[in-house]
């Protein structure tokens, strides 16, 4: 991607349109990161220190998607560290699947921590767009688990 003025304008418009606080594009790695209203300001971090890539982190959400799709998208993030389970038992159906409508109280998954199964609720109404974490794998605090289109 070559940066030119029209692109800057395009990106600025994007940011305004989707209420993004940061767009970062790494031409070398092809990584794209979009950030919305971050609670903590990491912006001061110089880009040249490569961000640590925690081994436990699942595949990052394809952040380009919201740009292509005009509907705002939010994520349901892991409230604790633990192991992510999509269904209440190995053979059972998943709590939610893509396309399901959820309310704030809908249980979307379980995170096991210290032998305790913790139910995770959607915390907002909407439609599940994607599952971002891998079943039976570790998730860290704040890791996005589901993409959700708010109702």
């Amino acid at each position: 991607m070559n940066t030119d003025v029209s692109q800057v304008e395009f990106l600025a418009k994007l940011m305004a349109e989707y209420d993004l606080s940061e767009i970062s594009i790494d031409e070398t790695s092809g990584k794209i990161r979009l950030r919305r209203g971050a609670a903590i300001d990491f912006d001061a971090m110089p880009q040249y220190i490569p961000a640590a890539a925690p081994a436990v982190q699942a595949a990052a959400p394809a952040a380009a998607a919201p740009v292509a799709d005009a509907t705002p998208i939010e994520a349901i993030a892991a409230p604790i560290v633990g192991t992510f389970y999509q269904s209440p038992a190995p053979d059972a159906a998943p709590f939610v699947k893509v396309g399901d409508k959820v309310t704030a109280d809908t249980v979307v998954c379980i995170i096991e921590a210290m032998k305790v199964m913790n139910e995770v609720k959607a915390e907002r109404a909407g439609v599940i767009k994607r599952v971002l974490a891998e079943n039976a794998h570790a998730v860290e605090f704040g890791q996005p688990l589901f993409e959700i289109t708010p109702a």
Partner: protein
Amino acid sequence: MFSSILIANRGEIALRIVRACRELGIHSVVAYSQADERTLAVEMADEAICIGPPPASASYLLVERLIAAAEVCDVDAIHPGYGFLAENPHFAEVCEQCNITFIGPSPAAIRRMGNKAEARRTAAAANVPIIPGSPGVIENDRDALTLAREMGYPVMVKASAGGGGKGMRVVHNDGSLVQSFHAARIEAEKAFGLADVYIEKLIERPKHVEIQLIGDKHGNVVHLGERDCSLQRRHQKLIEESPCPVLDEELRNQMGEAAVRVAKSVGYSTAGTVEFLLGADRSFYFMEMNTRIQVEHPVTEMVTGIDLMREQILTAAGEPLSFTQDDVALKGHAIEVRINAEDAHRNFAPCPGTIEFYGVPGGPGVRVDSHAYSGYTIPPYYDSMIGKLIVHAPTRELAIVRAHRALSEFLIHGVTTTVDFAGTLLDLEPFRSGQYDTGTLERWLESTR
């Protein structure tokens, strides 16, 4: 040996543990809060896992978060560093229950040393001098006189409800004791609604001298000489050195052996420190034991050539100590200067913010342990220490000169730090002469106001 260790800490000590793991071939996993994502420990570790939001109460202090992180990362052991959960016996117990080695002492040893009264009793039982004091409240001036004569003047009469110097009297002889006893009671009654007072021997202008020791799980405990940590402001150490400028070999051995006795009496099996008050008359008194690695451990590493962090991990894994007491010798002189993001001219107010440029000193005899870098943002959630400068030289005089030289090379732009203030401290006459005590810095700060 461990194949993987979770580091339940942040900042420079997390990085110190990562370094030791790297050199031991152990996979390191840093558990970090959202405020510490962009730190060198996270960057340098083999793996990192976010455990919670910035406040320590929601991340570094949450036992269940750390255990969950340890479990999903499948580690063999947890290193707690210092602070946070390092001296929390419950955390050590939960680790034990989860079959994760806690790199530190047994929960029982932490408990015994964590309780001040019990630590005092333990030391006394190990035939280590403690600061003489009345066992409880003194009921009348007759008992006060008897006790004061027993422990020898000067003594302090202190209010049991204590605080802020109220109901406190320094007494130098029988004559003023009775008067002070009653005056203190009246003052205490007024200030706290409780007249109870007790008596403690006053150690005048004492030094804070601590003995570093390390044990293993085979019953060995070795002491590694002392550190003089008397330069303090509000009980915060600012400069530490080894050897202590007023100690000789005889006193060093006496204090070292006393420290080992305390440690052995609680079955101590890891790195730890016994803190003493040292009087001008060479008498020393047990204050407390820190059951963890300490901020100032590099000072001892520099003079002994022993890698304490490495030994701490190895002994936790069941290895015997790689050396005996006879192998330990202090070589040269080491000084540690803490670099804090604080404004010495504004009552040491913390100065979080972004470090625009960070240039560390180098060259001979200089070691820097720091998690900062050009562009690092110091978060407002934790303590203000951003690094430690440790210098080593053949003599104390040369070590001071080297510390000055290294400080002049420490370039930190964007936030206010104690770099310049540290240079001032090195120049204070009591520091130069080595005749400084735990009150020196406060007295000097008072005099410059």
